[in-house]
C-alpha cells in the first residue's frame, strides 16, 4: 500500500548536527546534498547513501535515509552491488580523496561499466581523520604531515579519470560555488555513472599548512587547468538496463527437454583405470568424457579428471578415468591398468606410472615397443596405426579410435553405450565422424584378436 507523504523539507535528523571542524568543507557539501535530495523529492526508502572511511564517512548518520557504511575505499563496490541487485534504488556514494586513492580501481571500473550510481568525492587534498597525511589529490608541493618538504607527486584529476574510460558524467565544483547543489542534482539525475569532484578546505590540516582557502582553491584549479562545472555528460546506456534485457532474454529460453536416458549393462569384473595421454588440440578431454559417460549409463561408478598446462593450447593433455562397480573413494591412479599414449608430450607426462602390468595402447608411429623394452612386456603393448587411420576420417578423431580400442580390449561395457554417449553428449557436428572412428578402433582390436 502506498501512502502519500508531503515532500520532505529536509532529510537531516533534526536533533543532530554535523560533527565536522569549524569551516570544514564537508558541512557545506553535506548540506548541499540534503538540498539536492529535497529538490529531487527522493523517496528515502528508495535511496541508499553509501560511505566509507574518513571524516566524510560520518556523514550518512545525519541523514534519515537508508545508509551503508563500509570499508575504506570500497564504497563503490557496495554501491555497485546494491544497484545491480535493485536497479530501482538511487545509490549515492560519499567518499573522500583518501577513499578515491585506495579504491581508485573501483572508481575507474564503475565509470567504465557505467553503473548508475553517483559518486560525490569530498576532496580536501589530504587525510583529515588520521592527521593530515598526503593523498592522491594533494597538489604538487603541498605540505602535509607526510610531505613536510612539499609533495613530490602529481595529483590525480578525478574528472579526467572518468574521461579516460569513456565514462558518462563528471563534474567539478567547490564548496564556494553556488552551483554545488545544482551539480549534485544533475549528477543524481544522470542515468549512468556520475562523479562530482568537490574541492573543499580541510581547516584542521591542509588549509592551515597551505593557503587553501577560497582563493587558494580557485588558484589551484587555474594552475592545474581544471575545468569547472559539468565536464563530461554523455548519453550511454546504463549497465543495469543492459542486464535487465539480457536476463529477460535468458529467462525466455525454454530448457530443451532431456531425452530419456538409455541404460546399458556392464561386464566389469574389477576396478579398471585408464590414463589417456595426448597433446593439446587432440580432443583428449572431450573424447574421454564421452567414454567415461558411457560407463555411467552402463551402471558403473566412474571418475574423470584432467591434467593440462595452463597454456591450454600447447603441450600435454591427459585425462584419467576409473571405472568401478562400487563407489570410488580414492581417485588417484597410481598404477594404471591401461595407458593410451597418443603423443610424446603425453608420454613424458605419464611415463613414471608405467609398470610391468600396464597395458599400453599406442600409435605405431611412436615406437613404444622399442622405447618400453625391458619395462613392459611387448605382448602388453597394443601397437596400432591410430593416427594413420584417423587421417582417413579426420585427424581430430584419433583419440576416439584409441578409446574404442580400449573399450574392446577391456570389454567393460558394450559399444552401444559409447554410441549412445556420442549421440547424446557430443556436439552434433562431431557425431558422424566419432561413430566412424569408434568403429575403426573396434575393428583394430577384432583383427588383432583374430590374427
Amino acid at each position, binding site marked *: 500500500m502506498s501512502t502519500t507523504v508531503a515532500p520532505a523539507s529536509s532529510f537531516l535528523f533534526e536533533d543532530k548536527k554535523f560533527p565536522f571542524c569549524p569551516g570544514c568543507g564537508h558541512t557545506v557539501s553535506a548540506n548541499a546534498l540534503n538540498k539536492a535530495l529535497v529538490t529531487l523529492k527522493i523517496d528515502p526508502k528508495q535511496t541508499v547513501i553509501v560511505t566509507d572511511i574518513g571524516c566524510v564517512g560520518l556523514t550518512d548518520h545525519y541523514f534519515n535515509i537508508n545508509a551503508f557504511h*563500509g570499508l575504506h575505499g570500497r564504497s563503490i563496490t557496495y554501491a555497485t552491488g546494491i544497484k545491480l541487485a535493485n536497479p530501482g534504488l538511487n545509490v549515492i556514494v560519499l567518499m573522500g580523496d583518501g577513499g578515491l586513492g585506495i579504491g581508485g580501481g573501483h572508481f575507474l571500473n564503475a565509470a567504465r561499466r557505467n553503473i548508475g550510481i553517483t559518486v560525490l568525492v569530498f576532496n580536501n587534498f589530504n587525510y583529515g581523520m588520521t592527521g593530515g597525511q598526503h593523498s592522491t589529490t594533494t597538489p604538487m608541493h603541498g605540505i602535509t604531515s607526510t610531505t613536510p618538504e612539499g609533495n613530490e607527486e602529481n595529483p590525480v584529476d578525478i574528472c579526467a579519470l572518468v574521461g579516460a574510460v569513456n565514462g558518462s558524467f563528471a563534474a567539478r565544483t567547490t564548496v564556494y560555488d553556488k552551483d554545488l547543489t545544482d551539480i549534485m542534482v544533475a549528477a543524481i539525475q544522470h542515468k549512468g555513472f556520475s562523479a562530482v569532484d568537490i574541492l573543499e578546505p580541510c581547516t584542521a590540516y591542509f588549509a592551515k599548512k597551505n593557503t587553501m582557502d577560497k582563493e587558494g582553491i580557485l588558484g589551484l584549479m587555474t594552475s592545474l587547468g581544471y575545468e569547472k562545472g559539468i565536464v563530461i555528460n554523455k548519453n550511454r546506456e546504463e549497465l543495469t538496463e543492459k542486464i535487465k534485457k539480457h536476463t529477460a532474454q535468458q529467462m525466455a529460453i525454454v530448457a530443451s527437454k532431456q531425452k530419456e536416458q538409455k541404460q546399458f549393462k556392464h561386464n566389469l569384473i574389477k576396478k579398471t583405470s585408464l590414463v589417456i595421454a595426448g597433446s593439446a588440440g587432440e580432443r583428449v578431454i572431450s573424447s574421454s568424457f564421452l567414454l567415461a559417460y558411457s560407463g555411467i549409463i552402463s551402471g558403473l561408478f566412474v571418475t574423470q579428471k584432467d591434467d593440462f598446462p595452463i597454456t591450454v593450447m600447447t603441450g600435454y593433455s591427459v585425462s584419467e578415468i576409473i571405472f568401478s562397480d562400487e563407489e570410488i573413494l580414492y*581417485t588417484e591412479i597410481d598404477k594404471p591398468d591401461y595407458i593410451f599414449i597418443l603423443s610424446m608430450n603425453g608420454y613424458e607426462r605419464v611415463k613414471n606410472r608405467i609398470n610391468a602390468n600396464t597395458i599400453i595402447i599406442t600409435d605405431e608411429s611412436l615406437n613404444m615397443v622399442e622405447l618400453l623394452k625391458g619395462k613392459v612386456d611387448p605382448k602388453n603393448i597394443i601397437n596400432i596405426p591410430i593416427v594413420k587411420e584417423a587421417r582417413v576420417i579426420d585427424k581430430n578423431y584419433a583419440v576416439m579410435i584409441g578409446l574404442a580400442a580400449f573399450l574392446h580390449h577391456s570389454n567393460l561395457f558394450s559399444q552401444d553405450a559409447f554410441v549412445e554417449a556420442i549421440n547424446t553428449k557430443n556436439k552434433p557436428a562431431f557425431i558422424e565422424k566419432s561413430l566412424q572412428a569408434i568403429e575403426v578402433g573396434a575393428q583394430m582390436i577384432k583383427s588383432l584378436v583374430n590374427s
Partner: protein
Amino acid sequence: MNIDFLDGNEMVALGAFEAGCNFFAGYPITPASAILQQMIDDLPKHGGTAIQAEDEIASIGFCIGASMTGKKVLTATSGPGLSLYSENIGMAIMGETPMVIVDVQRHGPATGSATKDGASDIQFARWSTSGGYPIIALVPTNVEECYTMAIQAFNYAEQFRTPVFLLSSKEIAMTRERVDWSKIKKPEIINRTYHKPEDGKYIPYRFVNSEDIPPFAAYGGEELTRYTTSTHDENANLLADPVKIQRMMDHLNKKIDSDKISLVVKDFEEGAEILVVSYGVTSRTAREAIKMARANNVKVSSLVIHSVWPVPEKEIKNALKNVKKVIVPEMNAGQYIYEVQRLITNNAQLIGVNTMDTRLINPEKIYQAILS
C-alpha cells in the same frame, strides 16, 4: 534413469540455484573459475544477476551490497582470492551479512600450485580476518555433497546472518563423478527472518539475547535500514560505551554455536580403540584405509567432519571415548589436528598423516598409521 556425470564446481552451482541464489559476483581463479562461468551462463535463466568484478575485493563488495537488498548471494574463489576477501569477510561478520563464500582450495601458500590439490585453507578460513570472530565452514567430501552443502551453506548464512564458507578443493571441484539424483537428500530451504510491520519500528541490529539473530530489512523495502562496518549499537551508530561494546561482541561470538551447527558422519565400530578423524577429500582416502583395516579384522572407527567450523566439539569428544589412538590425515602440515588434540582427555596417542605433494594421501599411509 536420473544419473549425471558432474564435477564439484558444477554441483556447487546447481546447489546454489536450488537454494535460491539470485546474485553472484566473482573473479576468475583456478580451480574455482568454472563456478563463475556457470553462474554467468545460467544464473540469468533463473532470473538472477551474475557479474565478473574487476578483482576479488570488488567481487565480495558487490555481494555484500547485494545481500543487503535481500538477495541470496554467492561468490567463489581459491586461496589467493580468499586472501583478498579478508577485510570484507570481517565486514560481513560485523554487519551481519548473509552470504556464501566458496573456497575451492588449491595447494600451497601464495600462488602455490594453481591446478593442484591441497587442504590449504582450513585454519585460514577460520581466522581469515581481523577481530577473531566465529565463522561457519562446511567441507564436502564428494560432488554430491558439493550440492547438498551448497544448499546447507545458504541455509546457515540466512539463518545466522553471517558469511558461510564452503571449502571444497581442486580434487572434488574438478573431478567428474557419478551423481545419482534419486539418492540425494536435499535440505529444506531456509530463508532469513524479515522484520514484520507488526513488530513495530525497525531497529537494524536489535537482539534481546546475545545469541538472537536480528531480523532483516532490505534496502528498498518498507523500512529504512542502516548497515555498518564499525562497532555499533542496535541502530548502527558508533559505540564508545565499553559495556555496550562487550554486549555487541558477545552477540557475534555467541550466535555461532556448535550446538546448532554440527554436521558429522559417524562410522563407529563396537570396541574400536582406533579413531580416524577426517574431512574433505581425505575422508575418502581414510574410508579406503578403514576398509582395508576392517578386512584384516582391525577394529577402527571413523568420524568425518562436515562442519569444520564451529568445531563440533560434542561429536568429537563423544567419538574420542575409550579411544587409544587417534589419526588425523590432512593434505597440509597439520591444521585441524590441534582442534582434536585439545579435546583429548586421556592418554590417547595422536598421529597426523600429512602430505603436501599435491597428490591425495595414499590410503596405504593411513592404513599403516592404523596398524602402527
